[in-house]
């Protein structure tokens, strides 16, 4: 059954997702060019000093890209479901509402994770071309929270879009912005290192909290 839901979601988001993929590839291309340019304009040891010691972030252009990807995937996935309340069709399927909701989230998160992992992999490749492995590591630890912000944006988008009540939709949007903001603090590169594991907790909470608007959508009230 999850395969069927996967199939439906694939039909729904394949084209917009491909466009997002191209956007992310383009962005990584831009980061590769910008990083190379740093080394053209200055001696490599000076660039290393700036990036590895002074905290310059050579991939700063990526910071909000996962956030955008997360929001867009949530919109691609759930706006068609909310339009004319088509989500009722899925919720009437002979499986539990929780199963339906979590399957949808699983698909969306998979779509998002592919993009995020691709971003991180390409970022690693670009960084490894110019920097030592320490540079790759600090870059990944810097960029990983950005991708978690994207996951929060996706889950927050779902939390907001699936909520049938306008007042609560606004509240959920604020909650989503609040959670995403946790991952976008401007610290030193790599400063999130010790907290990353803990910062998965709000994402797990969000994922399960999404069942609440789904139940409210299903029954219009949660008694």
């Amino acid at each position, binding site marked *: 059954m999850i395969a069927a839901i996967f199939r439906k979601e694939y039909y729904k988001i394949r084209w917009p997702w491909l466009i997002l993929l191209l956007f992310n590839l383009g962005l990584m291309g831009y980061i590769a060019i910008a990083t190379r340019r740093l080394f053209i304009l200055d001696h490599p*040891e000076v660039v290393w000093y700036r990036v590895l010691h002074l905290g310059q972030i050579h991939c700063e252009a990526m910071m909000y890209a996962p956030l955008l990807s997360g929001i867009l995937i949530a919109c691609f996935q759930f706006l068609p479901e909310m339009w004319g309340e088509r989500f009722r069709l899925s919720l009437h399927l002979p499986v539990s509402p929780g199963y339906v909701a979590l399957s949808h989230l699983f698909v969306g998160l998979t779509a998002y994770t592919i993009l995020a992992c691709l971003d991180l992999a390409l970022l690693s490749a670009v960084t490894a071309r110019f920097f030592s492995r320490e540079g790759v590591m*600090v870059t990944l630890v810097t960029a990983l929270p950005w991708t978690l912000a994207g996951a929060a944006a996706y889950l927050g988008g779902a939390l907001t879009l699936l909520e049938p009540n306008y007042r*609560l939709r606004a509240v959920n949007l604020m909650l989503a912005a609040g959670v995403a903001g946790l991952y976008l*603090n401007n610290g030193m590169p790599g400063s*999130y290192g010790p907290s990353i594991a803990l910062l998965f907790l709000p994402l797990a*909470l969000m994922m399960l*909290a999404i069942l609440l608007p789904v139940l409210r959508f299903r029954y219009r009230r949660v008694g």
Partner: protein
Amino acid sequence: MKRLPLFCYTLLAILVTAVYLPMIYDKVFFKKIEKTHLFYSPVSQDFIFKEKLVGPVPEEAQGFAVDHHTGIAYKKADGTYVPRIDFEKHLPFIFYKNMEIWGLLPLELNGRAFDKAAIKADRKVMELKSRNIPDKAPVVKFWPLLESNPGQARLVFPEDRFRITDTAMVFINADTNTQDKALTEIYTRALKDKGFRFPARSVNGKFTVLKPFDEGVFLVDADYRVFHLKRVNGMPQVVDTHIPAALKTRHIKVSENKQKEFYGLLLTQDGKVNLLSYDNYGLIPVPIQGYDPDRMDLKLIFNSLYTTAVYSDNTIIRAVAMDNTFTPVRSYVHTMSRATPTTASKIHDFLFPFALKVGVRETDEFTRVSFVPGNWISLGGMALCAVVFFGISVLGRGRRPDAGRLALVALTGIYGLIAVSLVEPDH
């Protein structure tokens, strides 16, 4: 079915409000008050400080605090306020340029005369901020080893950086981003020959070219032995410092200074601070009672007569004045004005039973999630929230609230009240 999502949503709402509400409140109602500047005056032979005052300026200080910024007081340890110029005259080794302008140089203290050159020659400051200890910051463990004999006035960065692995000191060339096998071999061999045991526990140096000269790096090996490594004419120069391994050196804050008296400050595992001397790497303990490197910033202010160690956490500043032999002559403890409770801080405590902070703290460079508990005033706010919730339930909905929800509101105060209002059943 609905219990788990309800619980998660409620918890999420509590977490988010506990992060942002106190943060927004602080942004609106709090000014960041910098720490007090505390000094030992060789003139009055007592402490004197400059402080941004929280709340009204005392009457006796009012006449003195107008020249630059109102709300700043200059105060002696005996409790008297002084004007800014008097304050500076109390600290002639710091404000020697003004002393010169005011025609007060050379000055005579303790039977010795000091002119501008003498004052300048003996002045220096060493600092060890809690957040700058490498294990409290996201330091990239990949360092440059500067050429200590550059053959010119200006220092330059080498084309390579090194890392210390479990078995070697590995140099990576920045031009090619590949390992320089020859350098790696030479330096690894040099270290091993001196008895260095890999891996290193810490690598300590001042990694900048903006310094008068380079003293290389101090490496603490796996056995806590400290080695001094310099790159001289491209070749390694390794010295076993014989600093006792039992001290378990945690960090050495290297600070190259033309006086060439001390390499810097050495912090031991148990939080003791020593001056690391050029004289055979001898250690001079800095007598600072109650110093905690993980919470406090330390500053050592040297002048011709005294060295003052000033160290502070968020609320209390302490100082020890020492003579030239680093024997304490006087000490002082002062609760900084920034710690004074204000109406805004009391309302903060009342409103928020606790706060979650996600970000960099004053004492380290990592973005951390920290739980900041409230105080006894917060109990009032928690009780009020519980009463409000009870009232809303009974008056508005005609039924007593569920005990679990009431307990949640009582425990989490305003956050819980908001969260349970959001997930109130029946829409």
